[in-house]
């Protein structure tokens, strides 16, 4: 049913890449933007092409555009007006909705992401950092030949060693719990890709013209700096032994750093479980842990996916992509001030219903689940005045004044068009 020759690979597959470069671009004129797009079109992979390609094929580039970018390419005003409000406004303008306040405010973002001249992102994938640098240099050489296309900023990403264990700078296993698109628990594809039925029926209205929107998706991009020193200090301050510190780390996230979910491993870590994709996502909360004695109500994974304790959950999932940037901080070393973190994309068919709902209601609302004065401990906007309750018998533990472990350094709303749509844009966006 899915047109795999037309949908870009980004949300449906993973090329065998452990490194990437994100280039944030601006188009001085529509002609410049189209020339660049026409020039790289052959390297943009459909889901089918990437799945069938050899591992050694490293040409793949993913491209996506902001609303301003679609306009900069010459999409006409009538068509632009059919795109959803939140996409048109852009993530920076939605700071209040998303809770991007204080140090997370767009005024403090870097790389020009909050500006109106952010038009496009090009993601170059590679096997490793050296290959990435070569591919990125090739792409940059091409960009400099395209008069009128400028690079606002770039970001180099690579998996942290040991690479068999995909993890972030805090040491948590990642790439867990993605929504299923096939199999018995599959969600309708229209939840993530435009032009297909979704969980509510027919799918959302397609922006016009259809050639531009069909087979596309929205991406919410978030760059989070991870304050590893502050995180390690917090664990040391509130855990008297390494075991207690590991448990505390688990209580914040809802999973042990190995990936094992607290609901299935409430007292002791189980690294085999954490590494087993057939088992590490098979759990619910309603019957197994209604009061949060295993996984606290406010833990990150419980907020991001309340599973069987939320209504309408099938309308609130997102496909996540992304990886780490910045050199790792060696164990035991004091924080060196290096900018390190994760840069992620959340793919969905409705930014407001899926991404913004989660961010507004589950991450940053201090009254979520009748918790008084709490925000998501990992990604919430923290200023040192919020708490974390860890249910425990006989008396719960409450840690007051959580520091900020992450800071939002940039973000944007992109539209990830299908291949036909890219040709339409490169050809002048005229029907």
């Amino acid at each position: 049913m899915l047109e795999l020759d037309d949908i870009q690979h980004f949300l449906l597959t993973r090329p065998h890449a452990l490194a990437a470069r994100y280039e944030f671009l601006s188009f001085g004129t529509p002609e410049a933007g189209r020339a660049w797009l026409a020039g790289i079109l052959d390297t943009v992979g459909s889901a089918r092409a990437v799945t069938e390609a050899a591992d050694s094929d490293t040409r793949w580039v993913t491209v996506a555009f902001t609303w301003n970018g679609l306009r900069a390419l010459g999409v006409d005003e009538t068509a632009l007006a059919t795109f959803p409000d939140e996409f048109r406004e852009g993530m920076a303008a939605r700071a209040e909705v998303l809770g991007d306040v204080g140090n997370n405010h767009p005024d403090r973002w870097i790389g020009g992401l909050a500006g109106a001249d952010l038009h496009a992102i090009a993601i170059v994938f590679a096997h490793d950092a050296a290959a990435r640098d070569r591919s990125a240099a090739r792409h940059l050489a091409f960009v400099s030949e395209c008069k009128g296309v400028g690079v606002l900023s770039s970001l180099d990403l690579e998996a942290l060693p040991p690479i068999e264990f995909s993890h972030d700078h805090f040491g948590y296993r990642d790439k867990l719990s993605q929504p299923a698109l096939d199999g018995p628990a599959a969600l309708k594809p229209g939840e993530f890709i435009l032009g297909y039925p979704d969980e509510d029926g027919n799918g959302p209205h397609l922006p016009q013209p259809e050639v531009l929107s069909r087979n596309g998706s929205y991406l919410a991009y978030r760059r989070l700096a991870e304050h590893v020193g502050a995180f390690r200090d917090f664990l040391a301050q509130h855990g008297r032994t390494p075991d207690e510190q590991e448990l505390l780390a688990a209580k914040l996230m809802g999973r042990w750093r190995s990936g094992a979910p607290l609901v299935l491993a409430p007292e002791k870590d189980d690294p085999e479980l954490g590494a087993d994709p057939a088992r590490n996502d098979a759990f619910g909360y309603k019957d197994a842990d209604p009061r949060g004695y295993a996984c606290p109500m406010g833990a990150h994974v419980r907020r991001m996916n309340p599973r069987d304790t939320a209504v309408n959950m099938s309308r609130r999932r997102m496909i996540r992509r992304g990886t780490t940037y910045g050199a790792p901080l060696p164990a035991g070393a004091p924080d060196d001030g290096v900018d390190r973190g994760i840069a992620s994309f959340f793919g969905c068919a409705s930014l407001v219903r899926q991404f913004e709902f989660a961010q507004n209601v589950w991450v940053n609302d201090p009254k979520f689940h009748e918790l008084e004065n709490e925000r998501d401990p990992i990604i919430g906007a923290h200023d040192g005045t919020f708490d974390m309750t860890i249910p425990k018998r006989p008396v719960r533990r409450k840690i007051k004044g959580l520091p900020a472990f992450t800071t939002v350094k940039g973000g944007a709303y992109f539209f990830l068009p299908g291949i036909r749509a890219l040709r339409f844009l490169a050809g002048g966006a005229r029907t």
Partner: protein
Amino acid sequence: MMNDLKPIAAALPRAGEKLVKGRYGSMMPVTPANGFTLIAKVKPGCAPTIRAYGQKIEDTIRDSPDALAVLKLHYLRWVLFDNDTRFMYIGIFDTDFDKYVEDAVMLFKATGITTIFEQLEGFPADWRDNPAAFAAFCREHQAPSFMEYAQYPDISATEVVKAVTMKRALSEALDQLQ
């Protein structure tokens, strides 16, 4: 940041506070009697259908007491007035309506409450696939309050139930110590 359980009255909109706009508005505190007052014209001859829903809702909630729980309501009042030519729907609830409009539409479909809205002039014909149009209808027919009073401000319905449940349990425990 606990409130002190003292009653609050507010003249609205408050000076210097911008009105809520668009989806999810802002993270500002809710008003003392947060919710909406919808006022709409009834299509000619359709008042009896609306009125009959009173019994249907009574039956629904008796059979499934938690049917409307997701909307986090405190109170609802449905009124037909001006000789049954106009309908008023007052709801006092804990959520920001925008956030839950999809959940509300899904719920209304399931409980049949949408039949009431279909008797109102101006209600969008494509409401089934178009929660945004449903929300727009509510916003267009909303009559904002200029004053609200709350005896126990900012306490959610769930918290009220929890507090009473705890009080009863504690009271029973103390009785058993006699």
